[in-house]
């Protein structure tokens, strides 16, 4: 499959040209101040192998400043490994990678000083109190207490944890721990935030609170790099994303463009019962543009779900349940890989 680069992508935000030079129209300041890096992250043929296993298989992408960029894929797709390489904590096997123009393997501390990291698995210090977790973490960046104490309070407020400031981390719920981890990652005011499966294991309410906090950061211009296997999360948060499977990029673009390019406007979901779902396919032939038969349901991809449902009824088929919905990234993934995101 062809190599994909963000510069040619279809993100909501047009990617800046790599060779952009200051012009007369660019304003007076551009002549005096060196232009900031166009891309905060650039990966070319990034590869990581563990023995015989290739976790990341030659992926290339670039992320411009301020973008919310997602890596969408199932468990084991290579998303977390990619994040670890970006975070400068795992060495790549081959390819090139720069963060803010720096190679994380050569300039680990310098790269990590730019980042805020929310790991997949919380690693808060449970023996310390909530607020102390923020203070201690800030010290790793050499930040003085005169800054850290008010900043910790500000972040606790942001994470809606002010009343838990003196609690032990043990006493927090999963959602609270996640919010504290996000607050911790912001202690150094990073311009790039890496979020590895930020809402996995959280209940819907906790997820929405987290999304809201992430939106606010995005509004403040923080570049978000996010891995997820939840398509609704990717749709909600990402300006642009790559769909990853088995360490390779399967597709790339904005959520809307991916759905447009790889799916239809609507999907008709039919359930005939687990025994009939697979056999009914032939009878549905010709309805909609494409048919996917899954063990628990049949999906008909179509521009008009209601019309497709009428056609099903007209053929004398009586599904146990039927649902017309808009296409999602789940459908994109199914189309690209033939598998569901959450197996």
């Amino acid at each position, binding site marked *: 499959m062809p190599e994909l680069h963000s510069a040619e992508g279809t993100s909501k935000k047009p990617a800046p040209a790599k060779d952009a030079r200051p012009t007369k129209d660019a304003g007076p300041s551009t002549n005096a101040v060196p232009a900031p890096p166009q891309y905060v992250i650039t990966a070319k043929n990034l590869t990581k192998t*563990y023995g015989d296993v290739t976790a990341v298989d030659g992926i290339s992408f670039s992320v411009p400043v301020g973008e919310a960029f997602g890596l969408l894929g199932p468990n084991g797709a290579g998303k977390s490994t990619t994040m670890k390489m970006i*975070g400068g*904590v*795992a*060495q790549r096997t081959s390819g090139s990678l720069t963060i803010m123009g720096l190679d994380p393997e050569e*300039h*680990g*501390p*310098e790269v*990590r*000083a*730019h*980042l805020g*990291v929310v*790991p997949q*698995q919380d*690693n*808060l*210090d*449970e*023996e*310390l109190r909530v607020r*102390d977790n923020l203070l*201690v*973490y800030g*010290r*790793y*960046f*050499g*930040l003085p207490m*005169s*800054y850290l*104490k*008010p*900043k910790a*309070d*500000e972040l*606790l*407020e942001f994470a809606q944890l*002010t009343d838990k400031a003196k609690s032990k981390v043990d006493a927090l719920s999963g959602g609270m721990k996640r919010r504290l981890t996000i607050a*911790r990652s912001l*202690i*150094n*005011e*990073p311009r790039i935030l890496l979020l590895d499966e930020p809402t996995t294991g959280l209940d819907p309410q906790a997820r929405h609170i987290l999304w809201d906090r992430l939106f606010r950061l995005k509004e403040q211009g923080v570049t978000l790099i996010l891995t997820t296997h939840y398509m609704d999360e990717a749709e909600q948060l990402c300006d642009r994303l790559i769909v990853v499977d088995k360490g390779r990029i399967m597709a790339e673009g904005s959520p809307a463009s991916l759905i447009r390019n790889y799916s239809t406007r609507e999907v008709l979901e039919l359930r005939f019962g687990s025994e009939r779902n697979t056999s009914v396919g032939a009878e549905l032939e010709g309805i909609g543009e494409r048919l996917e038969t899954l063990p628990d349901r049949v999906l008909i991809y179509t521009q008009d779900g209601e019309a497709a449902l009428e056609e099903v009824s007209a053929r004398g088929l009586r599904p146990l349940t039927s649902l017309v919905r808009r296409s999602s990234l789940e459908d994109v993934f199914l189309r690209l890989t033939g598998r569901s995101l959450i197996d």
Partner: protein
Amino acid sequence: MTEPPLAKTSKTRTTSEPPLRAHPPEVSAAKARRWGAFYFAEQVLRVMKGYGWSIFLYSVGQPAAYLFAMGVGLATLVDTNSATAFGGVSYLAYIAPALLISAAVMTAATEFTFPVMDGFKWRRVYYGPHASPLTPEQIAAGQIIAVTLRFLLQSVIYFVIVAMFGASPSGWGWGSVLVATLAGLSFGLPLMAYAASVKEDKGQFAMVMRFIVMPLFLFSGTFFPLDTLPVLVRWIGWISPIWHGTELGRVLSYGHEEPPVLTIIHIVFLAGLAWFGWVLTKRQFVRRMGQ
């Protein structure tokens, strides 16, 4: 112009105050490169502060109990029956340096095993700082700095109690505090390297206590001179940081007589083993965190 005092909490901050600004990432990186180990040591010390009373009581209670039992009980019996058996000093003065050194080694056996496993495996606390500008070497070094401070604090308390019992007649006795710290590191750092390599807890650390620490404690010239043991088991003392530390402590505490070259061997052995342990630990931390 003087800056307004920083508010204690965000609730008291007003919009007229300048927004908080972290220093630039370049400054963070430069500071972390220079002081990173101390930043992590600060974290470990904060955690230790949480069980500070337990550390303090252990540091006071253990020597007081041992010295009282030995000084009032066993020492009375030994001194009455064989006054010159221990180089002309009281039995209490003879065993005090050994107890001091053994206490540091036992603390090392605790501080350099379970917390290391905790950092990598159980609560994964090493991976938080690992995502910051700190390097794996600095995380290891930070843990060592914090535990070294614990050795020093514990050994000072121990030594003060020893002195109160009149069991450190020489003016150089305080030097055994440093020897105990070195002995703790000499035993602890190779153990730390081992702990950093353990992926699954199958009771290895309990084995270390039972089959390494206890034999070393008993057969390192702690309660009786090493040369009273059969030659076949004397080697345990020769490779034991407790024996080397104890003998060095005795030289400092009451002027124990031994060839100067042996004193140098004690120092070189303890420092060399600590250095070897540090090299292995560093390598293990980098390997485990850099995958």
